[in-house]
Structure formats: structure tokens, C-alpha cells
């Protein structure tokens, strides 16, 4: 992207019909650490890479619960993501208060998209610098949406955003055809594998990633570190790819966990 004379204001069109500030804001999403989402007919999973700035620091929250039935993963400016999460929580709780029933996910993302669009059409504002993967369940089934800073939103079977997300997308593209019938365990394993792809050879540990799930009979919640460790161990035992047989199997032996990288002894990243 080159600097040019049409990119100072978000309200200035370029001769080619582009809004450069909006496009630059989408670059901010690509700079953030990766987040992936996938869904079946009944469940939706979000996973995110949680890298701390240094060993002294704690990790930045990437996964937020908006209501019992919907949550988001963010990539980009975390502060913008926090503000939008508060907006989502507010919309959900207002709907629940008036109608005593959960806000349909499709309506939530439209409200979020309309809020983002406003910032692309006011000269005194700037677009939000965060992309959101919205995962939720309503009476029409499980859903996964991606909300752009541009105010666009799309529904996906599986998607990845943030840095090196292309590697995750390539993996998901190969497998998404079967996701509708996947069990929740298989969804989680594929999410972890997709996250692993974005790490480019770095070792996948529970410190590095956070996983959340929502589905039928299951409110949106972050999966605890021990369970994630079990999934990661199962992945490593099989031949480097998520294996159907190892799926429903019990977690690997206690020795393997205890002798692990001391992962369990370090404090877990912040939980909701």
C-alpha cells in the first residue's frame, strides 16, 4: 500500500472509488495475532493465539462472551475490541430484558456492522481497528460471522483472521466440507490444529492459545487449560494431524501430562 493524497480522511474517496482509511484499518486486523472460528450445525468454536508482549507481561484477552449463547474473538486493536464487546453485551442484554429470549446472532452482527459503518462515514471519526469473529447459537442453529472494520459482515463455515491466518485458512479450506456433521470434539481439534498452522513451527502450548465453544445445551464458555492440554497431547500422539480415532478417546496417561513442559505449573492465562 502506498501513501497517496486520498488517504488522509476517511470521508475522502479515491478516484478509483476506494476509501483508503477503511482499507488501512483492515490492515490493523492483519497485524493482530491470529484467531480462528469454525462451526457445525450445532456447535461453534473460537480459538485465538495469546502471545504476551514479554515474559513479564500477561496475555491480552482475545475471547469475550457477549451472552450465554454468543461470544467473539478479536484481532487487531484490543482496546477497540473491548469497546465493541461491551456494545455487544449491551445489545444482547437489552434484547433479553425486553423479549425474555436470546438475541438472534444474525441480528446482533447487523447491529455491530451498522455501528462500524458509521465510523466510515463521519469525518471526525476513525474506523474501528479490530476484526471480530462472532460465534453463536440461536433457534436457526450455530453461526459464525466475521465483522470487518469496513462495516461488512459475512457468514462462514470456518474462517481465520490476524497474522499468518492464511496458513489456517488453507488448512480449513481443505476440511470445511464436513464440518456440518463434526462432533464438538472434532471441531475443537481442528481449531487447535488451525491455530498450530499459524505458529509456523513454534510449539503449540496451552499458554499460547485460548479456545471457547458454544452449542446446543452448552453456553458460551472458555475451555479450561487442562482439557486443552489433553487435546494438544492427543494431537501430538497421532501422526501430526487431528485423528478421528484419538478423538473420543480418554486423555493420555498421567505421566505424559506430568512430564510435560511444566505447562500445567505455570499460571494459566486470564480466564473469564
Amino acid at each position, binding site marked *: 500500500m502506498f501513501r497517496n493524497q486520498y488517504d488522509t480522511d476517511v470521508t475522502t474517496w479515491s478516484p478509483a472509488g476506494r476509501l483508503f482509511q477503511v482499507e488501512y484499518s483492515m490492515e490493523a486486523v492483519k497485524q493482530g495475532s491470529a484467531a480462528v472460528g469454525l462451526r457445525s450445525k450445532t456447535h461453534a468454536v473460537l480459538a485465538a493465539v495469546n502471545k504476551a508482549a514479554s515474559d513479564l507481561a500477561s496475555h491480552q484477552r482475545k475471547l469475550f462472551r457477549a451472552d450465554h449463547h454468543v461470544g467473539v474473538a478479536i484481532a487487531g486493536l484490543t482496546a477497540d475490541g473491548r469497546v465493541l464487546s461491551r456494545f455487544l453485551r449491551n445489545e444482547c442484554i437489552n434484547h433479553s430484558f*425486553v*423479549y*425474555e*429470549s436470546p438475541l*438472534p446472532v*444474525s*441480528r446482533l452482527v447487523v447491529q455491530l456492522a451498522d455501528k462500524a459503518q458509521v465510523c466510515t462515514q463521519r469525518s471526525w471519526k476513525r474506523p474501528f481497528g479490530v476484526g471480530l469473529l462472532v460465534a453463536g447459537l*440461536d*433457534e*436457526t442453529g450455530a453461526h459464525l460471522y466475521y465483522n470487518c472494520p469496513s462495516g461488512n459482515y459475512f457468514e462462514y463455515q470456518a474462517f481465520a483472521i490476524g497474522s499468518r491466518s492464511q496458513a489456517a485458512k488453507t488448512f480449513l479450506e481443505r476440511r470445511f466440507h464436513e464440518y456440518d456433521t463434526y462432533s464438538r470434539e472434532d471441531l475443537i481439534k481442528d481449531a487447535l490444529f488451525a491455530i498450530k498452522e499459524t505458529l509456523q513451527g513454534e510449539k503449540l502450548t496451552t499458554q499460547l492459545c485460548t479456545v471457547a465453544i458454544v452449542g446446543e445445551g452448552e453456553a458460551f464458555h472458555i475451555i479450561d487449560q487442562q482439557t486443552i492440554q489433553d487435546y494438544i497431547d492427543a494431537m501430538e500422539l497421532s501422526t501430526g494431524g487431528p485423528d478421528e480415532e484419538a478423538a473420543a478417546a480418554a486423555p493420555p496417561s498421567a505421566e505424559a501430562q506430568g512430564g510435560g513442559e511444566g505447562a500445567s505449573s505455570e499460571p494459566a492465562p486470564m480466564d473469564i
Partner: protein
Amino acid sequence: MELQRSMVDGSVSMKDSAKSEISSERTLYPYVTGTSIIGIKYKDGVILASDTAGSYGSTLRYKSVERIKQVGDHTLIGASGEISDFQEIMRYLDELILYDKMWDDGNSLGPKEVHNYLNRIMYNRRNKFNPLWNSLVLGGVKKGQKYLGTVNMIGTHYEDDHLATGFGNHLARPILRSEWREDLTFEEAVKLIEKCLLVLLYRDRSSINKFQIARITDEGTTIYPPYALKTFWGFSHFQNPSKGAAGTW
């Protein structure tokens, strides 16, 4: 009551004070009213029933008032109390359903949602001392789930297998409590309702012999045309009533 009203008037905002000098802008008492509504769940869905009378005080002024209406695809509402307030409620609900349909996204408001929305309105108005003077029954079916609830002018709301408003609570519900069953067929349910409607006709002075029954199931809604019930007045005590007392009027 007067003291209460002046206290409340005092707390009305500045811009309202000019208005309140001219007229009071709140509901004080009802004018044209409907009497009981009865609602019951049955095997395939929910049935609401009422008469079609609009009373003006003690006068049976209007004889063809439809007090049961459809709200969206999944809900029926029946109203007793002030008819004009019911018409206002229908305006709110029709607008609500319209905006819901405009989403065109496969989601729709069911009876539970409509009931809660209405409850918010009724309670809010009550807190402003300007109630919608109604007792409402909402019945509906969505995705096989039957729903029957009630809400009134003070915001009290609850659900049950059979409900009534006004006199129906005292005359119809005891009958329903002893004779209602989960698996009533449509014919059995109508017979049970007619039994209740007849008692109300005999004993409620604001009722008339012109009834409407409405049914809602997963397949859809039907509001049946009004009809009359057979009454019997040939009791021996009604023949020659002054027999036992000389010089009665």
C-alpha cells in the same frame, strides 16, 4: 386519591405543567370495556374465547367487538378492559411484528417474546400512573411449544395451562381446574370452553350471547365467526316468581 394525584402532578416535568393545567393526560377510568377472556391449552395448541360485547358502563352498547386478534404468525391476543387501549396495544404489536418481519432472516418473535414485550409496556405505563386499562391473555404455539400467558394493567404477568380475565377468574377457572386435561381434543376443548362461557353468560351482567372462539396451532391461526349458545331459563323458581310473596313488585 386526590392527594396522590396532586403529588404526582408536582413531579411532572416543566414542559408538562402547561399541558396539565388544561387537561389530565392519564387514564383515570375505563369507558368502553370488554369483559372476560378465557384461554386454554389443548392437545394441538391453544384456544382463546370471549364474547363480542363492548359495554359503556352498565349499558351493553356495542355488540360486535372483536376482542381476540392475531399477532404475527405464532400468537393470539385477547383483551378485556378498555377497548381503545386494546386498539393502542394492537398498534404497538403490529408495528413490532412488522419490524420483526422486515429483518426477513428466518427468525421470528414467538408468543413468549410478545408477552414479555407487552409486560414491559404495561409495567412501564403503570409506573407513570397512566396505565393501559386492560387484562390481556396471550396464547400461541412456536415450534411445537405451546404458550399461554396473561398480563394486566399493573404489570402482573404469569403463565398457566388455562387462564381467564375478570369474572372468568372467578367463574370459569374453577371449572377448568377440575375438568382441564393435557390431551383435550379440539372438540372436547370447545365443549369445555362453552361450559365456561355459558356460566359467564348467566352470571356476568356485562356479557352477551355472542361468542368468538380462536384457535392457534403450529399449522396456523383460525378466528371463528361469532355464534350463540343455547340458554335455559325454565327453572321452576323463575316461573311465577312472586308466588311465595304477596304484594311483591
